[in-house]
């Protein structure tokens, strides 16, 4: 019953990198049609958790389900039709045109060469992020913000129902961060499920619908009766003294001055 509203269910995932325990028995649910944000300090396991959810990193003895379907029973091509994943900062080598980059998002349904339908979907995806006018430009000549939008178009061209983004706002300026998050909100409005790793809790609280907090490879919750932007909870999450400034029904937080 609850499954209808759950896009991704992660159960008891343990991930080790050598001797280091990156994810220590993580279980969580990502609500469908919402913008979920993963928060936590560097090295808390956010990226790994996202890669596990994308089916790229091994989920160990745990389990990842997409709309109730066991991820391990899906082929990677089929999984790519359900989950799209944008890795951290893409570094381009060859000056492919924007259109060619976006078109590679169709790879899971292309045998040898992309068909006209694939090109149409790539164009629609570029249109959706407002990058269609740059279709012929070399990707390498775009600004960081434009490149990020192109990579999001690439994920959209894949036509997944769930999109996982690893730090999509890093390298973007103030305005582009806001634009990108508004774009994510508009995707969510069209029944896509979006999960994004963000560094800035304030941006997360401004735009996000659902929050997941990670510390030392475990999920943390604020506890009974406390909101997610409870000052003490965030202080324990980030291990630093914070000040908070109320804003509407939420609050902004900043590291406390000495």
């Amino acid at each position, binding site marked *: 019953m609850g499954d209808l509203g759950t896009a991704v269910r992660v159960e008891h995932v343990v991930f080790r990198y050598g001797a280091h325990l990156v994810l220590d028995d993580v279980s969580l649910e990502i609500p469908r049609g919402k913008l979920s944000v993963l928060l936590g300090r560097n090295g808390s396991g956010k990226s790994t958790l996202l890669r596990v959810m994308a089916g*790229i990193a091994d989920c160990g003895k745990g389990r990842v389900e997409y709309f109730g379907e066991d991820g391990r029973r899906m082929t990677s091509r089929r999984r790519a039709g359900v989950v799209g994943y944008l890795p951290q900062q893409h570094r381009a*080598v060859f000056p*492919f045109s924007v259109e060619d980059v976006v*078109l590679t998002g*169709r*790879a899971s349904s292309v045998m040898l060469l992309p068909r006209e339908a694939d090109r149409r979907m790539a164009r629609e995806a570029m249109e959706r992020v407002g990058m269609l006018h740059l279709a012929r430009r070399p990707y390498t000549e775009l600004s960081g913000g434009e490149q990020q939008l192109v990579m999001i178009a690439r994920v959209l061209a*894949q036509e997944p129902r769930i999109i996982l983004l690893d730090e999509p706002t890093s390298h973007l300026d103030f305005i582009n961060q806001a634009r990108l998050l508004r774009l994510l909100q508009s995707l969510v409005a069209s029944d896509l499920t979006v999960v994004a790793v963000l560094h800035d809790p304030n941006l997360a609280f401004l735009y996000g619908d659902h929050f997941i907090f990670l510390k030392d490879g475990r999920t943390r919750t604020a506890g009974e009766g406390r909101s997610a932007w409870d000052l003490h909870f965030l202080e324990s999450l980030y291990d630093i003294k914070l000040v908070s400034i109320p804003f509407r029904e939420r609050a902004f937080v900043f590291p406390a001055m000495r």
Partner: protein
Amino acid sequence: MSRAEASRSSCLHWVLYLLPLPVLVLSLLVGPSETLTARDAASWLAANTLGLAPAADVNDRLARTILLDVRLPRVLLTFLIGGALAAAGTGLQALFRNPLVCPYLLGLSSGGAFGAALALTTPWLPLQPAAFLFGLTAVGLSYLLARTHRRVSTISLVLSGVIVSGMFTSLLTILQFLTDPFKLQTIVHWTMGNLHNASWAKVRSSAPLILFSCAWLFLLRWRMNVLALGDEETRSVGLNPEREKLLVLLPATLAASASVAVAGVISLVGLVVPHMVRMLIGPDNTRSMPAAFALGGAFLLLVDNCSRSLTSFELPVGVFTTLLGGPFFVYLLKRARIGWEI
């Protein structure tokens, strides 16, 4: 890109695709023979292909022998080898995500050279298969050495390629040290790249494999666009990068090894031509893969024409490709945008 630019670029890639035809004909006319001039050859060719009246002073049997038995196999073999090396280079540059990669990176040339030297010093070992198999062995070793936890990272592949290359070069040196001076000379000649002993037998023994692997690369050309974006980017769209890499590495190695086996080490074609193509028509492999094959073949033919006609004796073609390609390579290195990117 404007409409005018787009049409210019589409015009340009047709020029590249069609370039081999005039170059092939031109190459038939070039040669050191003093009894058959280029004009005679042209007149004989025109008479036998277009049905024009032959010039009276052309010796038909001589022209037939020189053109059909000596020059035609050489021209075809040269074209195939140039095309194969350039196509393999294009595929490997996408695989390694690096425009400075060439088909010999993983030890193919030193393995092939060792195999050839072994065959030249061992009476019962046939040369071409030995060079071919040792070229494949070297690449296979590099691949296996680089493989850890069922994944093959680009940097470890490059490093193991350096190690395997070095090992086979040392083994080659031992052979050269132990063998007699006459055989040593043959080995050295072989490693410099040679097309002068081209024959129909060599065309027959290498063409099927070269054409097969180039067709394979041609079919996979769009997947190379995916692979060229990076491992994680490939995985995220549902393809397995390790599998895709192997699918490109195999035909590239087969094509290059078949070329090395039949003509020795012809350097820089597989490095420089893919780059020239990318500068001319852009990085999209769906177009640059066939263009690289065509331009690679035409380029090697032109270089071979120089080596056949510039001096009264024939210089090994590998020397020429290096002399021409070297400065170009330096120019590429100096351009700021090109560098290592793993």
